[in-house]
């Protein structure tokens, strides 16, 4: 595909991209800025931009009032746990779909993806009742299950597109070489699909980390991750913008860092198979 662009077109396109980028980035930037202000400055009108008294007191107070690390630990456990459980199911599922397709494989994939279009609130009540009856409310195990099921269609879909690119011959060669199915997957398929698996895992960790609907509705304290940590600053004691900002900054920081370092991997993963 030839892509001819005039210098003018190129410049205006760049400017446009920058504006969009800044618009998207601005709220995060503003949040970080606010987290370093005092409560008074945080709500002052007109808002001060750089020239205010930088302070860390919000962070100190946030850590004192609630245990950030407990929430962060839950976030890590939920995100990593649901991703690992998901991987076991998604790899086997994608293997079957990519290498032993039937006439209805494409339909099954689309159907799996279509479940993502349903608003989660539609199944909130049944799931809440199940959780209550099975004693899963506010447990990490229960939440891992929900997050894993929620992201499974995306994992299967991503791994499927990756596996499709791997020549079946190589797996058949392993079969001829006497590899059993688990060995074929572990020693031959997975090592060849490392980039795909890495980006699938990354995306799912990010999605699970950011997930707020189920984590807020199904936890109270024991299993509550950082989303609940943020939420706890918005309601009970009125609005404290600066502390809320500090809490939010703490919550998004780890995932931002991971995302930043792995963006190449992610972009490749998300567009894999789309361009050849």
């Amino acid at each position: 595909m030839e892509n001819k662009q005039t210098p003018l077109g190129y410049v205006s396109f760049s400017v446009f991209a920058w504006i969009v980028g800044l618009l998207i980035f601005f709220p995060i930037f503003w949040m970080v800025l606010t987290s370093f202000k005092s409560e008074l400055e945080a709500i002052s009108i007109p808002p001060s931009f750089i020239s205010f008294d930088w302070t860390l007191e919000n962070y100190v107070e946030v850590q004192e009032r609630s245990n950030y690390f407990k929430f962060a630990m839950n976030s890590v456990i939920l995100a990593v746990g649901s991703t690992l459980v998901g991987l076991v199911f998604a790899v086997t599922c994608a293997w079957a779909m990519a290498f032993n397709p039937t006439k209805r494989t494409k339909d099954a994939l689309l159907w799996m993806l279509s479940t993502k279009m349903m608003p989660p609130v539609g199944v909130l009540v049944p799931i809440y009742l199940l959780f209550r009856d099975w004693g899963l409310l506010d447990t990490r195990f229960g939440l891992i299950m929900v997050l894993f099921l929620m992201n499974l269609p995306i994992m299967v879909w991503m791994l499927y597109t990756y596996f499709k690119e791997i020549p079946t011959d190589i797996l058949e060669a392993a079969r001829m070489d006497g590899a059993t199915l688990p060995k074929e997957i572990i020693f031959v398929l997975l090592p060849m699909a490392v980039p795909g698996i890495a980006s699938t895992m990354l995306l799912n960790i990010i999605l699970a980390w950011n997930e707020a609907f189920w984590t807020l509705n199904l936890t109270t304290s024991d299993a509550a991750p950082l989303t609940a940590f943020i939420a706890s600053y918005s309601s009970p004691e009125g609005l404290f913008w600066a502390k809320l900002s500090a809490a939010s900054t703490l919550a998004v920081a780890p995932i931002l860092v991971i995302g930043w370092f792995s963006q190449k991997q992610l972009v490749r993963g998300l567009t894999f198979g789309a361009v050849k």
Partner: protein
Amino acid sequence: MGAIRLEKVKKTFGTLDVIPGVDLDINDGEFVVFVGPSGCGKSTLLRLIAGLEDVTDGKILINGTDVANEAPAKRGLSMVFQSYALYPHMTVYNNIAFGLKMAGESKDVIDEKVQSAAKILNLTDYLERRPGALSGGQRQRVAIGRAIVRNPAAFLFDEPLSNLDAALRVNMRLEITGLHQELKTTMIYVTHDQVEAMTMADKIVVLQAGRVEQVGKPMDLYSNPANKFVAGFIGSPKMNFLGGDIAAKHDCHEIGVRPEHLAVSTDGGEIAATVKIAEHLGAETYLHVEADGLGPMTVRATGEVDLGENDRIFLTPEQDRIHRFDQHGLTLSGA
């Protein structure tokens, strides 16, 4: 030991009848070549023997035991794929060793076998490389190395040379023939190149649309093709088929004459023709001619022949080399 016997082997893909029913005997130590046009089911038949496809019906006997429902690994066969199918993330050493590791061999045994295979195949200097850093011919050798270390009952090759350039192909052809002479293991080799079939095979199996058209030694197929299809498929350039008066004179529907069985003369002969294109190869000359009333024909003359476009010539078939066919394309016996 590797005698293979197919009994009424059938394969359908959905409603598509790819192999309607094949019976075949392959003796221990034989080099058997499956040939046939593209899409005739050669690969499918080979994959059925390998166990990579399930048979729809029929028996596959290896040394007398029916393995039709066994997993590929249980059949004790090795396969070399057209695409080489090397493990890209493993070194050459590990590629060759993989099957042995799966079989649970000890480190020492593995090392000994890999080293000796590498020596036979001239791969000793490349053992630590990845397949990506090898040439096509070297990759092919790794694929063969992976096959031989397992000491299989039989080797299966699916068009192993078709990704190589012409010169390398001739070399590898000789190497595989040499390997067969050395190992004396049964080999089944799929190709659509009839030169490979003629030069390598002890026995050729000609397939068309999933059916065995004829089985025989290369020269048998060349001299006594069972039908028009085999006659046209074996031999290069292709046999000339002539109908009309000249066929009637031989009391049949159609006759076949190989290009090398036509005598060329400028003075007189049975068939008058005009040269259209002359291909001079040095050792021989291919004349593509338009025969009066019979249409295009090909003639293969030995040595250099001083003929060119629009020259008038006369062709005379060698009488005892004429093949006669009935209206169904079956060979009629007696000349």
